[in-house]
């Protein structure tokens, strides 16, 4: 049960904040049904330093509802949506539980990968070992300012795919073409998929990104709709739109 992403189409990985609504796992089903190749689930943390206002708001809302990692994992374990699930959270929640236990808990809930935005490659050894032991993949992030030697190290150490942050900013920032160069550089360094993330809000963004990368992560743009009351079905329809745009391709990446 490793994280093996398909390579036959531009990858589409939508995001949802765990526990944002009581029926939040329905978003997983709808995402899966409407073309997701993997789903990123945010495990809410009180101090999300790489998240912009939208995902901060979503995390706060979920925490106010009283969600816990334990509870979310129980809910996740109870569903099977047919695409790989990836957890995204901050390092304190890992440390608090203990890296080994945390990874085992994820694996037991059926989660295949883990993204920790405040854990750079230099600090990742303990968690990487725990992840290996638990049989989940620790996915690392690269940024537009990452120098070449670090980029190589990240590309080497990341498992499952490489998470390329498109822009110098938080989730929900405006998509920047700098991301296309980063993704292209990364693809020189690894055979694993490279997914571009942060700020992908429109079909044009997604298509642009997918010309340079193997796929995209869409987070804040979806969560904005969820926070505005979008139902699982409505979000499914939104995702279907992205799927279609990606599959049909579109204009070139305008640098």
């Amino acid at each position, binding site marked *: 049960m490793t994280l093996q992403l398909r390579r036959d189409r531009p990858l589409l990985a939508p995001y949802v904040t765990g526990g944002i609504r009581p029926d939040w796992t329905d978003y997983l089903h709808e995402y899966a049904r409407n073309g997701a190749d993997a789903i990123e689930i945010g495990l809410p943390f009180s101090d999300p330093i790489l998240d912009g206002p939208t995902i*901060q708001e979503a995390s706060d809302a979920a925490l106010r509802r009283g969600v816990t990692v334990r509870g979310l994992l129980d809910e996740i374990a109870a569903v099977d949506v047919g695409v790989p699930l990836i957890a995204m959270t901050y390092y304190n929640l890992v440390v608090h539980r203990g890296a080994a236990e945390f990874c085992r808990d994820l694996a037991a809930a059926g989660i295949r990968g883990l993204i920790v935005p405040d854990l750079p490659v230099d600090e990742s050894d303990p968690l990487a070992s725990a992840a290996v032991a638990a049989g989940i993949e620790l996915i690392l992030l690269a940024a537009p300012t990452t120098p070449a030697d670090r980029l190589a190290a990240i590309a080497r150490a990341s498992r499952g795919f490489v998470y390329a942050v498109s822009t110098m900013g938080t989730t929900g920032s405006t998509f920047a073409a700098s991301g296309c160069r980063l993704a292209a550089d990364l693809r020189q360094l690894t055979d694993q998929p490279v997914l571009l993330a942060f700020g992908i809000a429109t079909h044009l963004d997604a298509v642009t990104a997918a010309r340079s990368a193997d796929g995209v992560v869409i987070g804040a743009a979806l969560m904005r709709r969820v926070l505005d009351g979008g139902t699982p079905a409505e979000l499914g329809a939104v995702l279907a739109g992205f799927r279609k745009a990606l599959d049909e391709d579109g204009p070139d990446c305008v640098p």
Partner: protein
Amino acid sequence: MTEIALPRPAASVMSDPGAVGRFGEYGGRYVPESLIPACAALEEAFRDAWADPRFRRDLDRLLAVHAGRPTALTPAWRLSAELGVNVLLKREDLAHTGSHKINNVLGQALLARRMGKTRLLAETGAGQHGVATATAGALLGLDVTVFMGEVDIERQALNVFRMKMLGAEVIPVTSGTRTLKDSTSEALRQWVTCVDEAHYCLGSVMGPHPYPWMVRELQRVVGDEARQQCAAEISTGTPDYVVACVGGGSNAAGTFAGFVDTPARLVGVEAEGGAAAAFGQVGVLHGFSSYLLQDENGQVSEAHSIAAGLDYPGIGPEHAHLKDSGRARYVTVRDEEVVPAVHRLARTEGILPALESAHAIAWVIRAAESGELPPWSTVLVTLSGRGDKDMATLMAAS
């Protein structure tokens, strides 16, 4: 007396934490990849500057002619007589802008200029670090943006005005608890967007490497001066106890650095409602690992203290290491002890300490009165700041 372990050898403590930025198991650089190059560049620039006699000379001169260093060492005559221990006060309240924060900030601002930066970002809670940063920015011609929680902006309107007078932009932070913890998060988020031109001027011995080390080095002037002054003032040359309040822990770290290789017992005093060393568990926040107040699910707890500057759920990583190694001891003081300590120092010495600093005084009073401090032992207390900023709080409390 019985409770206090003898100091361990100091060789391994308060030294250079190396490229990994570790103090024992604590510290590190837990920030998004986007910030790693900036942190690395900062470390390199600081190492270079700190080894450069010209930088040191420039900073020393700034500290002397602008910030008013050295600050006095004041024997607290009447308090000493009342308590039966010799209390010496290191007077950071006399430093320009009213607290030790200026030491750190002048160093970082000078470094920022050396790095070619044109802007400073800073987080602030009570506003002391924000005012200090605005001051350094004005003096060195750097734009300053200060992030401050909406709640704190309301509580500290005067300091907001001071920052604006000094030409700084103050950005309200509306996320989370809308206090210091959240303004720190927001400063980190914003730094990502402008790393090229901006230096993040962090206010205490926390954050990703090299901050905890760099801020301690910039604050060690407090301890170094005090050590020299103690040598002139005390027959035995060094005090028996060295006491400082701990929010993030910069005034304590700077003070301890001057005495870590002496037999002095080091005591850090936390606010009971923000006592990460006393009640926290190991965790990671704002780029470093240390003791951290958190709930049973690992969510970071809100700190609560009458002293806004101690209202932080974490503690600098070096303090976590000093605690584990036994070289320093961490104690807590309740809000109810702090206000009387302010009054007591005001009435005995004519000094109105900051509520933060009054925590250190409150512990000395308690420890002297309980007999924990041996009669006529010598106690150096760092008075980290002046109480003028706290008058409204004290008026409400009286």
